[in-house]
């Protein structure tokens, strides 16, 4: 049997998390195929073909896949699914939209956000916002899962694999893509940044969030993140929310500024290598997960920190 990875891309390039999905897929010791679906994305298929460990890239090209919808991708995957023992992708808003639909059409369960694969049908995943780990065993013949990328090392690149083209079924037709608004930022992508600075509600306003954190982020080449409280208060856009219902990050250095440390937030950052917390409240729970805690007024400490860094 064979393993299928659903590749995520933005029309320009392959998502870096596909490399981690390849490492996860190696567990089955079976040939690995990568599905690249889109419109005019031959160059992305070629990128995927260079992934070490991939035997074949399956390329589906169609006008209606320009902004791939879950309905169309599920239809497409169903045309080739009979060949596969496992279908997986890195956990993201893209894969968690598509793969449950695929699983239901195959009449199998799906295993979301897998932390570790322990046997060919057995997985460790977290529940209750990362507070509990469960080990589950699937009884289905086809495994459909998303993987928690930061738990898997990225596969490298090597010789080019074969690229095959497949027919795309007709468009689903009952769903239309209208528009998208993507945050424009000169900063590195939050999910893969080496340094992340997150702000909480203590920043007080969108203006202060920007004024206080931005200079430090620029100096450190860091991505900005935010707690749900800060996002709900309108201090930061929703797509930089770190946590259970936002983005999960695992940078080398995570600096939590004015963040209280609710479990829903720490779920999204607890795999960071070094955590720094700066908060005025000495009892804030964030200090329990921080390597270095500084009890201080952030409006004084952050400019001081920014000034002290070369």
């Amino acid at each position, binding site marked *: 049997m064979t393993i299928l990875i659903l590749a995520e891309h933005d029309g320009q390039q392959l998502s870096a998390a596909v490399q981690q999905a390849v490492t996860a897929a190696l567990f089955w010791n079976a040939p690995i195929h990568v599905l690249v679906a889109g419109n005019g994305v031959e160059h992305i298929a070629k990128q995927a073909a260079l992934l070490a460990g991939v035997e074949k890239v399956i390329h589906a090209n169609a006008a209606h896949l320009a902004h791939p919808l*879950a309905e169309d991708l599920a239809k497409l995957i169903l045309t080739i699914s009979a060949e596969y023992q496992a279908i997986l992708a890195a956990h993201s808003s893209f894969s968690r939209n598509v793969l449950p639909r695929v699983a239901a059409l195959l009449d199998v369960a799906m295993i979301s956000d897998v932390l570790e694969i322990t046997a060919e049908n057995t997985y460790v995943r977290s529940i209750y916002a990362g507070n509990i780990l469960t080990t589950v065993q699937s009884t289905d013949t086809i495994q459909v899962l998303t993987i928690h990328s930061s738990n898997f090392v990225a596969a490298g690149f090597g010789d080019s694999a074969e690229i095959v083209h497949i027919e795309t079924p007709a468009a689903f037709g009952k769903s239309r893509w209208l528009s998208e608004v*993507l945050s424009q930022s000169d900063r590195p992508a939050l999910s893969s940044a080496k340094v992340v600075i997150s702000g909480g509600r203590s920043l007080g306003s969108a203006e202060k969030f920007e004024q206080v954190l931005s200079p430090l982020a620029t100096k450190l080449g860091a991505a900005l993140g935010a707690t749900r409280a800060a996002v709900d208060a309108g201090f930061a856009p929703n797509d930089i929310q770190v946590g259970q219902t936002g983005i999960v990050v695992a940078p080398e250095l995570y600096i939590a500024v004015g963040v209280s440390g609710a479990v829903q937030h720490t779920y999204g950052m607890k795999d960071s290598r070094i955590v720094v917390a700066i908060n005025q409240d000495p009892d804030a729970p964030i200090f329990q997960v921080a390597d270095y805690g500084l009890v201080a007024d952030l409006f004084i400490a952050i400019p001081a920190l920014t000034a002290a860094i070369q």
Partner: protein
Amino acid sequence: MKILVAVKRVVDYNIKVRIKADGSDVDIAGVKMGINPFDENAIEEALRLKEKGNASEVVVVSIGSAANQDVLRHTLAMGADRAILLETDVNVQPLGVAKLLKAMIEREQTKLIMLGKQAIDDDAGQAGQMLAALLDYPQGTFASTVQIEGDEIVVTREVDGGTETLALTLPAIITADLRLNEPRFVKLPNLMMARKKPIETINASEFGIDLKPRLNLLKVSEPPARKAGIKVGSVEELINKLRAHEGIQL
């Protein structure tokens, strides 16, 4: 147009869940329970669509034991018109939930179905998409705004890196993100009145659907805890500590 909203009863989000001594499962006996927060957003949006004249009736469905009546009462107090309990002792997994809801939608003939984007207990985030698949309906997941326009629903979705807007031909499935709305506060008189509203109870086994779990729970455990580090006294001390780490450049 009728809207069906599915709600799950979960451990209150403020509770830190514990593990049974034998590691076989989580121990939620006697723990405070409530409506899954994302499902409350789904109800709120359904009620707002009705208040705007887009819908005629809001029907709420929950799956589980008789104890689920408390979350159904809560939705009736918020303003839902009817509540249905699909009673079962089985811990129904997302695929089973989707199959049961499909049967309910075929019975109720609803054109719009709303659910939360994920439950905060199992964090699976699958039921809405699975239901859409089984019904061959379009899906608008992680919705932050919805608007009915003729025979379509226009939905803005929260995706990694921004938002995306789709138009779905009704009937359709919507899953709610937290920023879809701020659920209303339930007033005491409404709660009292909701006690008098009937809750229809159907034995889930009547549908003849196989609800057996596809995923067997082998064990539960505590995740490795991140150790608390040290407190530093000043910005200078913090920088010195960080610079001592290999690979950290300040």
